[in-house]
């Protein structure tokens, strides 16, 4: 796995851990129905999925069958978005981020990532 892919999974695993350790993040995730987003990268074979809602954030490498939402985005862009260094909307309107399925719920993923990052910055983890 490349360094970028490793960093993407590391960040996602941090958010996953936060969802079990931080009450605010857990509470906010409880307000959403469970949804799965499949992430694909056009520039490599790297794939991962994220499931959020019902109070949890889960993720893993590979493919989750029948995911209702799919993002196709270059690895580098996804990494920068997760690190808070790039706006998802910029990538969307530049054509680098393609969302198949429920666009509105897909965009919520980026709101959740921003919230997780804010909480981590404030608490140093959870």
């Amino acid at each position: 796995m490349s360094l970028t892919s490793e960093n993407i999974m590391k960040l996602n695993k941090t958010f996953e851990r936060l969802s079990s350790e931080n009450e605010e993040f857990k509470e906010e995730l409880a307000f959403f129905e469970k949804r799965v987003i499949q992430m694909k990268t056009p520039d490599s074979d790297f794939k991962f999925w994220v499931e959020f809602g019902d109070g949890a954030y889960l993720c893993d490498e590979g493919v989750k069958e029948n995911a209702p939402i799919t993002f196709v985005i270059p690895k580098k862009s996804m990494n920068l978005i997760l690190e808070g260094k790039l706006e998802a909307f910029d990538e969307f309107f530049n054509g680098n981020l393609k969302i198949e399925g429920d666009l509105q719920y897909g965009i919520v993923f980026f709101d959740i990532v921003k919230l997780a990052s804010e909480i981590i910055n404030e608490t140093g983890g959870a």
Partner: protein
Amino acid sequence: MKQEVHNLNKTIIWGHRGTGFTSTQNTFSSFKNAIDIGVDGIKTETKLSKEGEVVLSYFNTLKINGEDIPIQELTIEEIKKFKFENNESIPTLREVFEAFKSSNSRYNFDIANPEEGIQIIKTAKEYGLLNHIELAKPSTRPDSLSDFFTEIRNFDKNVMLVNSVFLKHSVIEDKHFELDNMRKLNIKGINVNYNYADFELFKRVKDYGFKFCVWGILFKRSMKKFLTMKYNGEYIDALMSNQPGRLVKFRNEFQN
């Protein structure tokens, strides 16, 4: 009849497509739930049917016999055959105006083109609801305000128009407001995504003399942040959420 919060220095709360993520969006039951939980208005998208009737729908096309057909090529009868997962059909503007005419509810419509806006104005006038509607340029549209709103403003001098800043502008500069066009076309409000909204932007918009509206708010911390933000003794004019029930509850808590 509800009190009109815009006369009480409180923030107007829009329920996105009814109660947003908490029920089947853009259905009659979702609109009713939103009004019952205390939102001040419904924000949603419109489309025109083949006959030119306004329907409330986000979809550009509907799947008929496996084929995606643009809504404007379908009659109301054909549109009504489409069923959501809760077995409801796409509501028409007339049905919604008729059902909620005694509720004092407001409506903010993201329109796709001037024809839709003009048809909404005509329908609202029939119901005496022109003062209850706002027409917005969607934040996904890069069009200039002049291209988007001139025909509508020429048709009606009074209808409230709102400029949703194009989403690509995460750093919102004055040039993105098109201030000259806003004044020329008498556009009253500026609507921005909550990720790009802060006190400085709020202050700038109010100093320019426009209403400041924020959309997309989801989490308690952002609800609290924007419900408690004040400039010159005034709260933010309007907030839109996909979790409007929480927003109403927190408004009751944070704005007395």
